[in-house]
């Protein structure tokens, strides 16, 4: 009995979605809820679980095809009848790469004649890949920023300036698996073909190639400040947040050449948002130094119990969230937005927490943070961070933030000058928490300290107000009392 897999609706206003990657192929067994395919929509990219257990018998919508919500994209047969292994998976292979012309055998008939492909014109700047080999990340530069659309697949065939990259389906598959744009690969095969050797060599050597397939990206619209995983850096203390290094290109192994690497959709969105934010808000950053002794002690006292009860480590995040909440309550302008000549004060206090992923970042939102006590905030933050890392966030959980907290300190930055997450008006960046020598009662003391940097929109917040806000944050943190909080 067949189950239809449909294009889900990821949000009320979303009418269509693009399949970016099939995680299973026709003939594969799939469990219920097992990730089946990835989609990209206007608002969010997501991994879609299988609605049923069985064998994936048909794929009706191929990668990089866009269909309306509720369109059937695949079929699963629950009776476990496996498709014959040889059946090719229907995918929108483009006719772009013309088959090699038939040979005129030049040698005696005993030898096999190897077809010689027609000579390939020299590539030019507008060259496009011939098929959807590049996968979700790699759109031709001319494409819309919103993500793959059905027009992509058509465009590739009537193709740019007609340049076609010769390569076999095998090579295209390897390229896709490694997020490589074949335009960047030099082909040493006949007629400029990219051979298996070429693509494998490129993958092995190319420093800008991500080492692993891109995990599904769940981003907000707009995209927040790039930031690092949530706090740790107290000496000898552990933190729940991942301390994985960000993906940065390693020093070029191939000095002297340039490589053209198109941006992934997430990267493009981040790039656009950063510029947009800078142009929109009048960014000013004010920095305060906060003594973290009380927070540190409180955390240490409660860490074991929290971990026992919740299975996750207690981080510093909930402390900063609570402090921010207290300050916002006192200075509601920090929970507002600018709309033309109006200031929109939002009622809900939703604090976004920036979490770094392997290839990007995501900002899950603690909704109604003002209605939660410390424990509630801690649990929510822990849950969101864990599900952010395992890509199980819901669309709603990355929406609706009114204030953002980020953590440049995880890699040791003293403080940053974060970019505001539009349409908010402020963002709080927490620097590294480390022991420093400070003056207390005219004597030198060693205390755990942190710089907190607040970037705010000077269109609606003046320096004095920003500083008062930060004084409140500082006061809350330095006088942390469980009884109150």
């Amino acid at each position, binding site marked *: 009995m067949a189950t239809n897999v449909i294009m889900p609706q990821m949000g009320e206003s979303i009418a269509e979605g693009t399949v970016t990657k099939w995680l299973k192929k026709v003939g594969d067994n799939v469990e219920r809820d097992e990730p089946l395919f990835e989609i990209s929509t206007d608002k969010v990219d997501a991994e879609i679980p299988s609605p049923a257990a069985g064998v994936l018998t048909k794929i009706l919508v191929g990668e990089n095809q866009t269909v309306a919500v509720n369109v059937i994209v695949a079929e699963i047969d629950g009776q476990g009848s496996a498709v014959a*292994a*040889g059946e*090719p998976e229907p995918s929108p292979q483009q006719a772009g790469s013309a088959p*090699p012309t038939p040979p005129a055998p030049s*040698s*005696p*008939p*005993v*030898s*096999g*004649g*190897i*077809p010689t492909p027609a000579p390939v014109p020299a590539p030019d700047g507008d060259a496009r890949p011939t098929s959807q080999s590049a996968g979700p990340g790699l759109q031709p530069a001319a494409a819309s920023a919103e993500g793959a659309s059905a027009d992509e697949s058509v465009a590739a065939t009537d193709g740019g300036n007609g340049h076609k990259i010769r390569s*076999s*389906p*095998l*090579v295209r*598959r390897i390229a896709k698996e490694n997020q490589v744009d074949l335009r960047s690969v030099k082909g040493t*095969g*006949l007629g400029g*073909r990219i*051979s*298996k050797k070429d693509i494998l060599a490129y993958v092995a050597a190319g420093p800008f190639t991500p080492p692993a397939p891109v995990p599904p990206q769940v981003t907000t619209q707009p995209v927040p400040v790039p930031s690092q995983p949530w706090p740790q850096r107290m000496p000898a203390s552990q933190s729940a947040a991942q301390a994985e290094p960000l993906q940065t290109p390693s020093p070029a192994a191939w000095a002297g050449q340039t490589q053209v690497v198109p941006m992934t959709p997430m990267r493009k969105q981040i790039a656009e948002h950063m510029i947009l934010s800078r142009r929109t808000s009048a960014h000013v950053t004010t920095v305060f130094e906060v003594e973290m002794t009380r927070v540190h002690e409180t955390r240490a006292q409660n860490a074991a119990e929290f971990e026992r009860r919740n299975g996750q480590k207690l981080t510093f995040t909930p402390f900063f969230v609570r402090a921010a909440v207290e300050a916002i309550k006192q200075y509601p302008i920090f929970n507002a937005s600018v709309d033309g000549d109006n200031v929109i004060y939002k009622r809900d206090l939703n604090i976004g927490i920036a979490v770094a992923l392997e290839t990007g970042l995501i900002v899950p939102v603690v909704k109604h943070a003002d209605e939660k006590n410390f424990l509630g905030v801690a649990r929510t933050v822990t849950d969101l961070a864990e599900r952010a890392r395992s890509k199980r966030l819901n669309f709603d959980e990355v929406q609706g933030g009114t204030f953002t907290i980020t953590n440049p300190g995880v890699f040791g930055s003293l403080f940053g000058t974060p970019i505001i997450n539009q349409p908010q008006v402020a963002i709080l960046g927490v620097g590294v928490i480390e022991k420093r020598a400070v003056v207390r009662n005219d004597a030198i003391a060693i205390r755990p300290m942190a710089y907190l940097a607040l970037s705010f929109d000077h269109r609606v917040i003046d320096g004095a107000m920003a500083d008062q806000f930060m004084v409140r944050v500082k006061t809350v943190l330095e006088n942390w009392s469980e009884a109150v909080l």
Partner: protein
Amino acid sequence: MAVLTHLEAIRQGIWEEMERDPSVFLIGEDIGVYGGAFKVTQGMLEKFGADRVIDTPISESAIVGAAVGAALMGMRPVVEMQFMDFIACGFDQIVNMAAKIHYRWGPAVPIVIRGPSGAGVHGGPYHSQSNEMWFVHTPGLKVVVPATAYDAKGLIKASIRDNNPVIFYEHKFLYRRIKDEIPADDYIVPLGKARVAREGTDISVITYGAMVWTALDAAEELEKEGISLEVIDLRSLLPYDEDAVLESVRKCSKVILLHEDTRIGGFAGELAAVIAERAFDDLDGPIVRVTAPDTPVPFSPPLEEYFLPNAKKVADAARKLAAY
């Protein structure tokens, strides 16, 4: 362990089966008194007697027909074709009787028809053919083509024990030219399974019979140029080891199909189709065939040399394919 030639290994295999199973007997032209045109059955008449080593008139049709009849009565005849080229005279008995009796009315026909095939000895058109495809195309038969002495013994024993009619090709060029260490024990090599004759990474050469050696020679040559050939020895053509073929193709992504048989209707066509059907997405280059051309086998030695695939032709094809 003795070192035996291809021919001696086959003899030993038949001998052992004759000893093991009294229902096995031999029938063919000149196999008894003369010991066989190539001496495969030398000594067997003396050992096993005229009841079990039967010299016949020159009539392949009668020979095969008698064997089929004996098989239906519970014997396990091993028929020798003096040259596999003559098998055409017994064609009807093979394809219409032997191949179809089990399907049509039940009893098994456990005969083996064995004989020398192949070219390279200036035998001319009637003593040099590779006609295996006539029988690969006949459902109900099995077709076996060993390439090594070790496999020849193991496969002849397995064929004699098989309850189906088996056509067993022995390449005359290999009879005395190749040797192997042959265990004296009762080992068999299963029908229907290929063997990796040489592991490689760049191009898979799928072949059988004497051409396995040709491929190995080419591989040695190409190793020096940095091209790594994998050589798959099919050993059986019907049934054949499709999985082994596909596995090798998937690994190397480029394939050369090599046989001494002529091109059209040769086994390479079947393999090319299966590879294209089931491993299309694993290919990084066109499927290439290296075969004899579509003519009878020439007698003239230079023409025969021109006709036959050889290591140079395989290497040339491999170089082109590697550069594709």
